[in-house]
């Protein structure tokens, strides 16, 4: 179908959101999920899927979701770090449901969920 200039602008925006991932410099936020053997057996996989799904559903862009190995606190798995700018927050004992909340609260509403963070849990 023939596209107008406005149609083209729309395609541009939508596709850009999809392929922005390939531009390393252009990232707002990074979510690093622990995927060591400990993480996987504690259920990090469903958490990761939930994060991916939530990010997609909310139409968020410029977000990197990557995995990492064991960080040594296996008893607190599944855990993941959220980097916004230079600030890092570590969430522990996650579930898919909690993961979704983090995406919504932390990334969309810019509010850290204190009770899930490592500092709070370890008190």
């Amino acid at each position, binding site marked *: 179908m023939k596209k107008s*200039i406005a149609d083209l602008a729309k395609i541009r925006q*939508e596709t850009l959101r999809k392929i922005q991932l390939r531009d390393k410099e252009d990232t707002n936020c990074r979510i690093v999920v622990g995927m060591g053997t400990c993480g996987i057996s504690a259920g990090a996989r469903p958490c990761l899927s939930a994060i*991916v799904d939530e990010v997609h559903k909310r139409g968020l862009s410029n977000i990197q979701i990557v995995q990492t190995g064991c960080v040594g606190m296996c008893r607190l798995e599944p855990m993941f770090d959220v980097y916004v700018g230079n600030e890092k927050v570590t969430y522990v004992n996650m579930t898919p449901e909690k993961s979704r909340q983090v995406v919504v609260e932390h990334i969309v509403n810019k509010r850290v969920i204190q009770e899930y963070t490592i500092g709070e849990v370890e008190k």
Partner: protein
Amino acid sequence: MQFYRAHVLICGGTGCVSSKSHELKAEMEKELKALGIDNEVQIVMTGCFGLCEAGPIVIVYPEGTFYSQVKIKDAKRIVTEHLYKGRIVKDLLYYESIQQDKIKAVNEVDFYAKQKRIALANCGVIDPENIDEYIALDGYQALIKVLTQMKPEDVIEEIKLSELRGRGGAGFPTGLKWDIASQYKDDMKYVCCNADEGDPGAFMDRSILEGTPHSVLEAMAIAGYATGAKKGYIYVRAEYPIAVKRLQIAIKQAKEYGLLGEDIFDTNFSFDIEIRLGAGAFVCGEETALIESIEGKRGMPRTKPPFPAEKGIWGKPTLLNNVETFANIPLIILKGGEWFSKIGIEGSKGTKVFALGGKIKNTGLVEVPMGMTLREVIYDIGGGCPNGKEFKAVQTGGPSGGCLTKEHLDTPIGYDNLVKLGSMMGSGGMIIMDEDTCMVDIARYFLDFTCEESCGKCTPCREGTKRLKELLDRFCTGKGTFEDLDRLESLAYYIQDNSLCNLGQSAPNPVISTLTHFRDEYLAHVVDRRCPTGVCKALLQYTITDKCIGCGSCAKVCPQECIEPVGKVINEKTNRRAYVIDHTKCIKCGACIEACPPKVSAIITQ
């Protein structure tokens, strides 16, 4: 639209496809499915990444992990370890992207860090078969800008301002060419894209067409608007099946979106593009021969003038540009001619793509700003000669260019600089030669090529190149004389002066430049009957030295049975004798050298 957390980019350029990147893609898809993460990870076939040496290349985003020489059996490890568990498979990384346990992303590797990509900007970033991804990276925005905000004169003015010169070889100013083409009035005018890339070792046009075909289509439409043409032809060789296929897909998609065809963006501007396949004749890269071929005739050059701008395809005014020239246009329009003219050096603006080949570590495609020195391109990006060999010369401009030596390494690359040194930019092929290369043999190799490719229309080229090659054959077989050397030189200049088209006019260039820079090698072939590098087999002589222990391994493998134990006595008691080669029968196959026990290595070549 699906959101993917990771993108796996697999090179779909000709180089990597021939090392099975399609099978690799299928295998990865299978593995992703098996783990149930195929809806989280997207696999994209892109255009050439440029570092063909390391193919097949796989790049995983968001990390920018750079895997090289990935085998099909490695697919499973990348999927289960990296994509599922997030552990980078270190032993598959490109050797330079892992240093002291720190893993570098693809854009941090030296090979890419020094490059500046304009023509190849989208190559290896987008899926060339998906028009949406091209649009996402500002694709067709230049066409919109031109059609809605600029008059044809403005477009030409912008191109002139950029000081862009033709990337096909001769380096004619593009803006001026467009200006001239726009001034001829006729009921039908054409824009033509020359994708008949014929230089051995050059493959930038192919990679552009494979990696970002829409850039060329967009630029051709812009050229059509600027010069008043309604129809475009892309003349591409049938030897580039992947490029042809991607072009066909791109044209189809552009037509569906109404970016080609009637009344584009309701501006009354219409433009259509058709592909014409060439049979792969070198001479068809010459503009008038190309036009003949498009018209269905035998590809032979016409006399000029009239130039194609006046009488081109079907006798109508035609604008003819090279693929790489077109690939620069959209960005020039978007960012302005002034931006472009700030890159590069006086007389040579912007960037140029070079195809590195021959004796060099990082064989592949690089795009660098004009004015970079040969040393930077060959050593810093290309990695120098492999196996610690010493650099001897670089042939630029393919069979039509000349060679440059060590002393020219610090020359900034530019059209005029290279011509001054007796070579030329050409389409950007760079064939690197190390100390083991015989310059007479190289000249003969290129002559062999032009001799085969001469179309036969004019005598100086048809007969001259043959005679030139015969003379070179004489040197390589040890029959050359001083008179031959004189004859070689005068014939070379004669062909240069008298041929009809550029093929003939430039065919003797390799001879002239090797004669200028490496005359001593020619003399060694004539006076000493010796090839300093040992390449010319006919001039070699195999000799067995005193080290011979008389084992007879060499005699056993000699196909000519010309090695016999008739030398001096080695062992008095057994009367064992050293072996000797009968030079009248020797065919110089080298079998004896291989057979001689490495501890002994008694056989040498002289």
